[in-house]
């Protein structure tokens, strides 16, 4: 059952898990995963990671922690899906260097926080981001996995000047989204209407476990969205 091998330590300083070999018994595939430098602590070979209900998963003192899932179906969730009412306790996933890799979906709700993080995309182009401690991570993720996660109902808020957020509205079934870049719990998107047209607008969204909510619009009002405001 032991399924990890470590490359020899080269010279000095910290332990280096340069690579992680993982053997999947189901199909006898052998995958070679590159492990982040200095991540002496890690979670791997799991499909689901959930930190909720006031849970805390943390690496103290600026240490590195890597969490890897299954790119095809794994999920990482921080916070509670039912946190829209604000009653749930806050949950936290934090490390000096937090590396989250190979999850099909990553969701951080309003009462969850994951920071900071270096994000590696499951497949395709290399994409990393490093942000100062205490700030959320911004990373670029391929549209596929994130879109799969954001297939729930799309709602919108009327933007209240001077106030972030706003009032929840109802679903907008004619709205199609294309995720461009994703923060933890937020995503910048382009969207188009069922009536047609190109991908013309940007909006900021929040995924709170109950779907994707648009909370911000550009200065120029969108006729389609305007007429859907109750």
């Amino acid at each position, binding site marked *: *059952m032991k399924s990890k091998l470590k490359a020899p330590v080269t010279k*000095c300083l910290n332990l280096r898990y340069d690579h992680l070999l993982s053997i999947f018994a189901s199909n006898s595939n052998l995958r070679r995963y590159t492990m982040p430098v200095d991540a*002496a602590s890690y979670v791997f*070979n799991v499909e689901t990671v959930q930190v909720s209900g006031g*849970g805390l998963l943390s*690496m103290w003192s600026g240490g590195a922690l890597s969490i890897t899932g299954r790119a095809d179906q794994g999920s990482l969730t921080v916070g509670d899906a039912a946190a829209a009412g604000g009653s749930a306790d806050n949950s936290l996933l934090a490390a000096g260097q937090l590396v989250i890799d190979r999850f099909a979906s990553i969701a951080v709700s309003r009462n969850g926080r994951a920071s900071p993080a270096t994000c590696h995309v499951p497949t395709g182009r290399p994409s990393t981001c490093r942000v100062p401690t205490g700030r959320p991570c911004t990373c670029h993720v391929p549209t596929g996995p994130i879109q799969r996660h954001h297939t729930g109902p799309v709602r919108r808020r009327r933007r209240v000047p001077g106030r972030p957020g706003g009032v929840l509205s109802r679903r907008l079934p004619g709205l199609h989204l294309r995720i461009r870049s994703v923060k933890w719990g937020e995503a910048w998107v382009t969207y188009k209407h069922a009536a047609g047209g190109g991908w013309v607008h940007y909006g900021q969204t929040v995924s709170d476990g109950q779907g994707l909510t648009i909370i911000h619009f550009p200065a120029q009002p969108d006729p389609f969205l305007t007429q859907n405001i109750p």
Partner: protein
Amino acid sequence: MDKCKPLAVGTVLNTASGTLTISNRGPAGTTAPPVPPACLDPAAWGACATTHLMGALPLRGISSLLITAAAVVCTDACPTPPVYQEDALNPKPFASNSISIGASAASTTSSSSYSRIVHLEVSDAITLTGSAHLLHGNSASTSGRRTAATAALWLVAPTLSITDRSSLVVVGAMSVDGGPTARGSVVVEGSSSLKIIPKVRRCRLNR
């Protein structure tokens, strides 16, 4: 430190089901009070632990490890409990159990800065619930010595669940391995925590 005294120590190994349960429930089923926060300070681990897991927990014969009912469990990489004089004025303040499981902790290859690995491996689940605590490592140890205090903790189980005000605290390094099927989960919920406190290690030159 008397606040750390547990009601009782209950450890049950059910060989039929392969379940190892460690609880701090009293003889009559009374539930132990939550552990005082002072007991969860790394400096107090060795004294406050009601149960010490001595050696590795192998996969063979053990399907699940359940730590519950305010039990405080230390691996053998925890600080050594203090030795108390047996007299009327200074009774031994803690009833404690030591569970010797299998062989001693496995030694790693020379590729690791950690000389030893405490290996807890089950085929089903490792569960902490009911204000239970699993503690590993020794914050007071010197970083340059290769002792059990610098051992890393490997948890190998398809499911790791920390719920209901429980905690898993590691001084040093820890890995959670879901096993070869990679279909397991790690759940931390119910005001519970999984904390890793990395030790500062010195650079070893001329290796």
